[in-house]
């Protein structure tokens, strides 16, 4: 029986985008309609009802739609960052947390909570601002690590350096927590659990600037990451400026991580399990893995947030608990499935 020849690359890309795009689009459309209480779509879009009296519209546009959009952005960003870090560091365990950017963002947020920082920019809360600044600080360290690569340090040094930076930042986080009083400690702990209830569109719009820069960087990477996954030498032999492209990849992934964490807190497991699940479906080529991970990461986090805000209604679970409860077993399955 003759086997069917593989589809041309362009067709596979189109199929992948359509398939994963449909899943993400369905999640974005359905999630705002579901919650702890039903809303009437007719009332939501009924302009005859004054805005101030239209609770359905307020629930839809203030409470649900912003958090669904935030979930989409955060899920896509963390999944993309995970793909890039795993390829760059040649390590399937690498994640957006690996080089300490997430820890930097957490340190900024906790410093803002503990020291009552009063810095508000572009309608963002002091915690979000400090978190993003913290991630930029960690990004600076990552950049310095990448210059060590220019001097000939192997990828392993970058990885170990990142682990050391993360450990150091975690120690500083512990010190800041030590200085906090009980209520601040509670808020710190709660922030770490993640939340997508962003209340307005301002934080989403603000996050779009660094995310756009990241996406521009990611767009350059599919072929490079394929070659780097084999070896730096083979990439070099095919004309890739390895050091420059590694730096673009590092900065893009770090910027995306920083923006995502400052928007939602350090939501765990997305950056690890989504890329691996996507590779199971579309293979290892980054031309497909990158866009498919972004779309699936968006849908996955929207789904997790839907569970978080309905499973113990009228209360809600922090979304980080849901991603960890789902992500942990899935990751174990992926791990042992391969052996």
């Amino acid at each position, binding site marked *: 029986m003759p086997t069917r020849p593989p589809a041309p690359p362009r067709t596979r890309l189109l199929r992948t985008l359509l398939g994963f795009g449909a899943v993400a689009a369905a999640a974005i459309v359905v999630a705002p309609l579901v919650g702890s209480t039903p809303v009437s779509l007719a009332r939501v879009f009924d302009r005859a009802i004054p805005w101030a009296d239209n*609770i359905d519209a307020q629930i839809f546009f203030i*409470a649900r739609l912003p958090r669904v959009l935030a979930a989409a952005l955060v899920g896509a960003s963390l999944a993309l960052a995970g793909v890039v870090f795993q390829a760059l560091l040649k390590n399937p365990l690498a994640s957006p947390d690996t080089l300490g950017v997430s820890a930097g963002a957490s340190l900024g947020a906790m410093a803002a909570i503990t020291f009552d920082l009063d810095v508000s920019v572009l309608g963002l809360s002091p915690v979000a601002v400090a978190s993003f600044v913290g991630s930029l600080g960690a990004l600076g360290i990552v950049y310095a690590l990448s210059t060590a690569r220019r001097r000939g340090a192997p990828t392993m040094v970058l990885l170990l350096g990142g682990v050391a930076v993360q450990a150091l930042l975690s120690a500083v986080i512990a010190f800041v927590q030590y200085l906090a009083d009980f209520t601040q400690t509670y808020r710190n702990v709660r922030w770490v659990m993640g939340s997508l209830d962003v209340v*307005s569109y301002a934080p989403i719009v603000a996050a779009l600037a660094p995310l756009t820069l990241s996406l521009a960087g990611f767009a350059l990477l599919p072929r490079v990451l394929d070659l780097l996954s084999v070896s730096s030498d083979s990439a070099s032999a095919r004309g890739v400026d390895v050091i420059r492209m590694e730096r673009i990849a590092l900065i893009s992934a770090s910027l995306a991580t920083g923006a995502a964490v400052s928007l939602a807190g350090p939501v765990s497991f997305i950056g690890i399990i989504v890329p691996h699940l996507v590779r199971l479906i579309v293979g290892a080529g980054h031309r497909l893995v990158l866009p498919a991970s972004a779309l699936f990461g968006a849908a996955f986090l929207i789904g997790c947030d839907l569970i978080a805000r309905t499973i113990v209604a009228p209360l809600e679970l922090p979304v980080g608990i849901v991603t960890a409860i789902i992500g942990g077993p899935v990751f174990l399955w992926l791990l042992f499935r391969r052996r």
Partner: protein
Amino acid sequence: MSRRIVVAAVLLVVSCAVAFPARAQTAPPPRRIVSMIPATTEMLFAMGAGDRVVGVSNYDHYPPEVERLTRVGGLADPNVERLLAMKPDLVVVYASQQELKAQLTRAGIPFYDYVHRGLPDITGTMRSLGTRIGEAAAADAAARRVEAQLEAVRARVAGRPTPRTLLVFGREAGTLRQINASAGVGFLHDLLVLAGGTDVLADIGRQSAMLSTEMVLLRAPDAIIELHYGQSLAAENVERERRVWDALGSVPAVRSRRIYLLTGDEFVIPGPRIVRAAEQFADVLHGR
């Protein structure tokens, strides 16, 4: 042979118990008390035993006399070495401080176990603690004063409409994220009801609940009381923080501008100053 020894031991124990039946009651009242909880520190001072308090937690700031006392850490990180060096004859601990209690037991230092629950437990604790330190009459008098003042607040608002109120005691500054509110159990809930409010989270059987904005929109409170304590709200930021709620325009409290930001430690310390908290709740909900 062994049976005789057992019988002799039992007789010895029984005879000792008969010979010294009131030993625990005749033990002198404690003179060097360390209080690890701000609420019990305030209770001790209210019953006139402040001069016997020699050490307090890092979080004690009332009454002003405590500022000169030795600090012995907090709930999660008590400084056991310093505490033992002070040679207290009674330590007031929180029920969850299991390790500290074990260390005190090993050191032979008596302790009084405290846990805060509802409003009636505050005066109940005052009486129990007073009895423990040999000041039963003074503690009862202080507890009666608190009860009478609370009753006066209740009487003042009796018969008035009870606005559906959301009592918030924490959120991220400058935004409506991470709203932490008092739910249907605990002294804050009891205080709100006593001061003539209806708790919009009364059906949630917990001391606190983390609220989403969707839930605030659905519960639609008539009034929102937001508590700030410590250094968490500068005077110049009050109006800015109040305006944060404007994002939820359909909530009756927002439309009628019934959002009240109250500042003071008395809201989070279930001690005798709880009366002031009740009075302020009643003031904002029903006018002075």
